[in-house]
């Protein structure tokens, strides 16, 4: 019963110190007291890493990762056969190839990321309030925003570490198995993918922290967060389809220009869902051949050279998605700030 906890404790304890020192900045001298923010972050990371909840989530993600890696590695040969050798980016292929039996890792992450974010944040504030630790904490000389920031930053540090190690494992494994050298562009794209995933988890995290500030019971906030997530992953598409069928004209009677226009409208409606933003952005980042997220006309395609896009161009395409996710995260965080800062805390 104790073994996994002890294992993780030892595994991460070094990292915790390193993280804390890195956060404290270079001017931080060791014997001086750490700032309250660093202290809280350190404690929060420790709590997360030792909690069974995190271990379960970790196992879930690692299993998903291994399964999708297995599927893609076994199918890498047929996928590689159709490609020109100069344009073939093996490590991106490992992340995206699938034979249809399992979704690829980045599709998995579009819903696992949400669960991860919700799982790490849904009881951030209200559990402390229920236990009576919140009032004790706030009776210390600590600014309230420090607490909220720590509740946000520490899970982000944990999941960044998690995804970075997974990606490095994947690259290392790929190097050993295939012996193919990794291109710089691949490193950039994988790093961008990890950052994007962290941002996406960050969105769900800030949403669930907002709910945990707003609701007194941890179960209420967890259920509400899961409700919002379900709405966006399942019902939102159905709702959009219904609206489209009810309001938009029959495509049979429309000119191609109009069809294109309405298609864009529908796509933009779908992009209100954060998981759609995430899937769009990861698809472009991990598949350099994807040139646009909307429909393209023949005129637009005319004269295009059939080569993969450069990293910069891919980033340009997904910039709106990145901004959207970032804005949603910030909005949730700002709201939780607003609700938390002047609230009366009682046990």
């Amino acid at each position, binding site marked *: 019963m104790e073994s996994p906890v002890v294992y993780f404790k030892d595994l991460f304890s070094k990292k915790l110190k390193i993280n804390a020192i890195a956060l404290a900045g270079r001017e931080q001298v060791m014997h001086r007291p750490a700032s309250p923010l660093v202290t809280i972050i350190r404690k929060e990371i420790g709590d997360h890493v030792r909690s069974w909840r995190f271990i379960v989530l970790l196992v879930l993600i690692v299993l998903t990762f291994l399964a999708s890696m297995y599927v893609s590695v076994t199918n890498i040969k047929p996928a590689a056969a159709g490609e020109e050798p100069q344009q073939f980016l093996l490590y991106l292929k490992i992340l995206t190839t699938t034979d249809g039996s399992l979704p690829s890792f980045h599709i998995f992450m579009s819903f696992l990321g949400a669960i991860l974010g919700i799982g790490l944040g849904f009881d951030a504030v209200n559990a402390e309030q229920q236990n009576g630790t919140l*009032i004790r904490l706030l*009776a210390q000389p600590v600014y309230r925003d420090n607490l909220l920031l720590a509740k946000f930053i520490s899970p982000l540090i944990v999941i960044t570490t998690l995804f970075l190690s997974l990606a490095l494992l994947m690259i290392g494994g790929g190097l050993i198995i295939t012996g193919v050298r990794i291109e710089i562009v691949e490193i950039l794209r994988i790093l961008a993918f990890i950052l994007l995933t962290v941002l996406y988890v960050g969105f769900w995290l800030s949403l669930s922290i907002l709910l945990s500030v707003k609701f007194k019971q941890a179960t209420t906030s967890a259920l509400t967060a899961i409700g919002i997530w379900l709405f966006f992953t399942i019902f939102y598409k159905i709702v959009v389809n219904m609206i489209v069928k009810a309001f938009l004209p029959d495509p049979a009677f429309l000119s191609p220009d109009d069809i294109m226009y309405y298609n864009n409208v529908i796509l933009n409606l779908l992009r209100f869902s954060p998981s759609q933003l995430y899937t769009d952005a990861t698809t472009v980042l991990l598949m350099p051949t994807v040139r646009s997220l909307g429909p393209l006309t023949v005129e637009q395609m005319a004269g295009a050279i059939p080569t993969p896009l450069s990293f910069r161009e891919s980033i340009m395409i997904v910039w709106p998605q990145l901004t959207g996710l970032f804005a949603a995260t910030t909005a949730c965080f700002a709201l939780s700030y607003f609700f938390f800062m002047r609230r009366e805390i009682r046990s």
Partner: protein
Amino acid sequence: MENPVIELTGLTKLYGSLKAVDNLNLTINKGEIYGLLGPNGAGKTTTILMTLGLTEPSAGKVNVCGINATSNPVAVKRRVGYMPDNVGFYDGMNALDNLVYIARLNGIPESAVRPRAIEMMEAVGLERSMYKKAGTYSRGMKQRLGLAEVLIKQPDIIILDEPTNGIDPSGVKEFLALIRQLSRQQNITVLLSSHHLNQVQQVCDRVGIFVEGRLLASDHISRLSDQLSSKESHIVTITVADVSPFTDHHQQEIEQQIAGVKAVAVSGNTITITCTRNLTPELVRSFVKNGLDILGVQQKEYGLEEIYQRYFENNLTENESNGKSGSLFQRSFFKKIKN
């Protein structure tokens, strides 16, 4: 000794239309142990939260050590140790780690954190179970751990909200003795709230009686007792060896000659005399003159229990006779107290 460390002026807190705290004025001096007494829901906790800057007052000012607690709560929290009503700890961490965490948050230098935490655990008598998970602690142990946590920041002021809740009687005694000792040794100001009167009586220098958001009385317990007994009739009980010399004639003499005697009642060997002022010496002289052998004289003293009871009885009867909203009966009640 006029050296106020906590000054509340015109403090008011509204929850919607409900006045939780109503125009409270209170000054607590350095080194004093002040007991805030009142029934549940009287606004004690709200007052404490405002003192710490954890809640904003609707009106009025809070000054703690000369710092405005509403606009600068962090500076106040550096000076004040607060133990809430329901102390909660991180159950997954051991008690010492809980304490170390709080010590770090208070900016105690890293090298001093552990030794000081261990020292504090010893001070509150938890040195034997400091490596136990806080979740396994009993209520009384948690209370002690809470006190250790309050003390580790070396505060000027300690605020304890219902500190004796849920501890057994002997534990309460020890706990209060510890608080008193600390306060005296290090000249720490203590503000504690409670609805357990006799416990408060043991340790407090001054008490404030707090009902429905108003401070009805605030003074030393002895003075409060005097105030109350001067308003009420004095009761002197005299026990004699033999009651037979005490005749009706004698009784009439006492009732007529000594001004202020209201009633005399005889039952067995005891004679109970109700009078409007303290007449004990006159009564004893008169008894001796009449050849009665006095075995004992008892003068009724008002303890905190009586004082408290008296205030609440008034409150209750007013409430019943008025049958109106709180503010109305509060007003009339207040008049009565002032008279």
